Structures are given as C-alpha cells and as structure tokens.
C-alpha cells in the first residue's frame, strides 16, 4: 500500500548518495557505519562505479580528495575514531576547496570508546576538526528519510560552494530501520568545471593546492574562504521549529536527541507546560539568528545532547545572555529519556 521501503538509515544514506550521482566511494570498516561500505561494495560494482576498501581511514580520505579533484562525486564514511584519522585530508580539502562528502555515524568516545550511538563529535565537526581556519557545512539528519535526502543534497551544496560537506549522524539514526521513500531523481551528466584536473593535453595545466607560499597569497586565500563561509551562513541555514510560539522553554536538539526531545515536548504540553523545540538541521551554519529572535521573546533554552555539553555553547553564544540556557545530556552510549527532559523542563519553569 505504500511506496515506502523499510531500510536502515545507513542504507538510506547510500541510496541518497547514489541517486545524487556518487561516482566513487572510499572507506574502511568501523561499527556503527558498516552498512555503508557493505551496501556500496555491492551496489557500486553493479552500477559500474568505483568502490574501494582502502588500507586505512587516512588513505580513504585522501583517495576522496584525489577523486573529487577530477570532478567526480566522491565520498567516504566512518565513525568517530575513524573520522579523527581523516582530519588532515579534510583540512586539505577545505584549503583546496574540493567538494566532497564525509559521513560520520558517531559512536561513543573518547578514544575507541564503544559502538553505541553518541553525539560527542559536535565540536570536531563544527569547530574545525583539522587545522587552519575552515568550516565544513555540517548536516544533521534525524531519520532514515533525512539520511537519504541529506546525502542527496550534500553533493549539490558541496559543489555550489566548492567545499567539503559533512553529514553528522549517529549510531542510532544509522542503525535503525524506518520506512523511506526514495523520491529523488537520478542525477547524471555533470559538467566539467574550469578547475577539474582532467589531464592537460591541448590546454593549459591547472593546479589545485593548499600549499600557498608566495607573498600574501595565503592571506588572500583565507580572506576568500571567509567570504565564502559568510555567503554560506547567509544562504544555507536549515532548521525545524515545533511549538515554539509562546513557548516558555525551548529545547535545542539535533539528530536522534531531537526526536526524543519532540516526544518530550508533546508530553510536556499534555501536562500544560509551554515547551517547544528548535532543531538545527545544519549545525554549521548554525541557526543563531533564529535562536536570538526566540530568546527576545523571553523563552529559556535547554540544549539536549548525547554528549556532556557541546552544542549548548553555540546556543549560549546565540542567546548572548538574554535568557537562561541549561543543558541536559549523557554520553558513552547512555540515552536521555523523554521523562528526564520533562523533569528538567519543570525544574526550569519553577
């Protein structure tokens, strides 16, 4: 009766990337993202596209750089410790302005941690991660459907701004199955850009690099990058609001936490508590302006995360002292429950 298929978030993500014209995937296994390379190892070969299981996460990320600089749509995926290993290449891609997709299906940290869902890599994703002044566009899906849609959109965003994009998912969104509708048209016929390295026979050689040693060149490059990031901040912020009008307490939550938070808001409303939810769908650029406007109405904020308090810092910056900002979170595989959120809301309303 429905066109919807039951698939894991990780598989939905693969389908989104494939529909977007993913030409080459490079990865290395790690739970809880293993369905991505497992699924693509079959699918990409069937489609006569490239699948490589690299010798390491570092190699995989650098292969993405190499593929994407030729104009191919390329991606890698991993989970937290593996994403740490990829940071050098990510910084290079930001510096070289190479569009590509990096997927982090977060697990518990620090270190090797465990394989449970977690949201402890927020700082790493939005505050740099690698070295140098750069930003990634960071998308935060909270359902299998959004894993599909965001993977699809990520490549267009990456190419529009010539910048790497990260999908910051988590073990729960990656592992759960939900009904998904694969409703995006297949993308093909990509046009060669004037910076793609395609072999210089019959034309001037092109060069894409991040080593810029000549006097003032790197300074100019950094200014250009910042201008680009400003443009992205102006154009690409995405968020969802739920019952924020006249709310006294607004929960800020992304990814899997936002779903638990939404249930908590419904529960709170049943008990007559004026709660609402603001869910950033882009973590960078962050919906600071929207939060600031909501804070003007006097609403207090509660950041709910599967971490010990990371996004809450950006909420505080956006609220800028206008109202109270509180935090509720757990890490290492523990989950915040709806009841715990409602209890915290009550405490804040008192």
């Amino acid at each position, binding site marked *: *009766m*429905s066109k*919807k298929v*039951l698939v894991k978030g990780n598989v939905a993500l693969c389908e989104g990337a494939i529909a977007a014209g993913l030409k080459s995937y490079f990865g290395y296994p790690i*739970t*809880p993202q293993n369905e991505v390379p497992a699924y693509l190892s079959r699918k990409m070969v069937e489609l006569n596209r490239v699948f490589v299981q690299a010798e390491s996460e570092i190699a995989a990320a650098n292969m993405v750089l190499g593929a994407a600089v030729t104009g191919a749509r390329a991606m890698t995926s991993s989970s937290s410790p593996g994403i740490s290993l990829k940071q050098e290449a990510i910084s290079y891609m930001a510096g070289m302005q190479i569009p590509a997709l990096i997927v982090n299906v977060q697990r518990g940290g620090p270190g090797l941690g465990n*394989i449970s869902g977690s949201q402890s890599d927020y700082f790493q994703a939005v505050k740099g991660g690698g070295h140098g002044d750069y930003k990634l566009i960071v998308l935060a899906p909270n359902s299998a459907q959004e894993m599909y849609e965001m993977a699809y959109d990520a490549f267009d965003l990456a190419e529009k701004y010539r910048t790497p994009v990260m999908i910051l998912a988590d*073990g*729960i969104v990656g*592992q*759960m*199955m*939900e*009904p998904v509708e694969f409703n995006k048209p297949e993308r093909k016929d990509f046009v060669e850009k004037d910076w793609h390295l395609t072999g210089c026979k019959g034309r001037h050689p092109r060069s894409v690099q991040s080593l810029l040693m000549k006097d003032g060149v790197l300074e100019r490059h950094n200014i250009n990058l910042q201008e680009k990031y400003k443009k992205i901040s102006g154009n690409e912020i995405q968020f969802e609001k739920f019952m924020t009008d006249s709310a006294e307490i607004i929960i800020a939550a992304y990814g*899997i936490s936002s*779903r*638990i*938070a*939404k*249930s*908590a808001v*419904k529960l709170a409303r049943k008990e007559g508590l004026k709660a609402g939810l603001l869910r950033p769908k882009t973590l960078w650029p962050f919906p600071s302006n929207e939060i600031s406007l909501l804070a003007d109405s006097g609403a207090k904020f509660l950041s709910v995360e599967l971490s010990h308090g990371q996004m809450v810092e950006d909420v505080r910056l956006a609220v800028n002292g206008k109202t109270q900002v509180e935090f509720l979170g757990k890490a290492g595989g523990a*989950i915040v*429950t*709806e*009841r715990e959120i409602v209890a915290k809301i009550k405490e804040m309303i008192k």
Partner: protein
Amino acid sequence: MQNEIIIAGFGGQGVLLAGTLLAQAAIEQGLHTTWFPSYGAEMRGGTANSTVVVSADEIGSPLAFNPNALIALNEPSLNKFMPRMVEEAIIIANSSIIPFDKEYKIKPVFAPVTDIADKEIKNVRTANLVAVGSLIKALELYAKGSCGEEADMRRQSAQEKEGDLCDLEDTKVLTLKSALTACEKVFSSKPALIEVNKKAIQAGYDFVKYL
C-alpha cells in the same frame, strides 16, 4: 496508540528478522514504525534483540522507554527484559525452553514456539515467526479486551448504543493480514521461504486462544 515491542533471544533465533516482519506489517497498515537492533558483539549462541515501535503518530525514540510487548525466545531474555516492561505488558514466552511453573512479575502468554515450528511447520528455524503470530493474536485480544471495556463504559455513560464500538482498524493494532503480506515482502528475495513462514505466523496466531 503506541506499541513498543522487544523481541529477544539467542543470536541465530531470528530476533532481528522477527522485528523486521513486525515493522513491515506496520508499513502495510500505513502506520509509523521504527526498528532498532542490538548490534554489539552478538553471535550465534549469544543474546540479541530488536526493538520495534509501531504508532499511529510520528515516532520519537526508536528505543523503547515504555515497552509494552515482549517476545522472549529464551529464558535469559525473559529475565533481562521483564523488569523493564510496563505493568500491563503482553509477553510471549517460548515455553519450549522457558519454564512456565515459576512465579513471574508479569504473567507471560506461554507458547511452545520452538515445538510448534519443529513439529507442526517442520522447520525449527521458523520459531521466531510462530512467536510473531502469537504476539499479533495476543495484542489483538488485548485490544479487543480494553476496547470492550471502553465500549462498555461509553455505552453506560453516553448516548452511543448502536454499532460495533470495537473496530480493530481504529485501534491500530497490527493485523494477521498485514503480517502475512509483510511476509511476502520480507522474503521477496527468497520466495521459497514465503509459504512456510506464512504458515508459521498462522500457527502461532491460532495457538493463542485467550490472555
């Protein structure tokens, strides 16, 4: 209505597949659903579980905070999850290998699903779907029961005197029909297994007569 269902047993008993079937059945009925596996170091012989949430409304957490249904295919699973269940939970316990003469906090519905699969279906590996059939029947009986009570109250208190106030479609419980349709989808890549698994679901459904 929201059902939060846990299916647990030894690794290899098919708890992930049983959950998938329930989730697919929910899709057949146009309901919202999520399926979440235990994905640790489970292997044949260890314990594994999956959690399925079925709801008429958008689902928040795919993890069960208030689980109200459990399929326990072995005793360790029953002991592990029983304390987490809500008071009026429906529990299907595999009495082929779980003792039924013990005191339990919540009285399970005992169904010898391994024996039914082995002797009646002639395929012991279908025990998981026998249990799914039993759960569907038990949830249906429960819904009829509570729906009956509600209908009685409404009859006593209000004007509604006519008609069937106990429409299961309205209560959004999973139906046998959708489970059988789901079976065709779930086993679409292995068509030889469709009929035997349908039989298993039917047998489990028929076994449960009352709560």
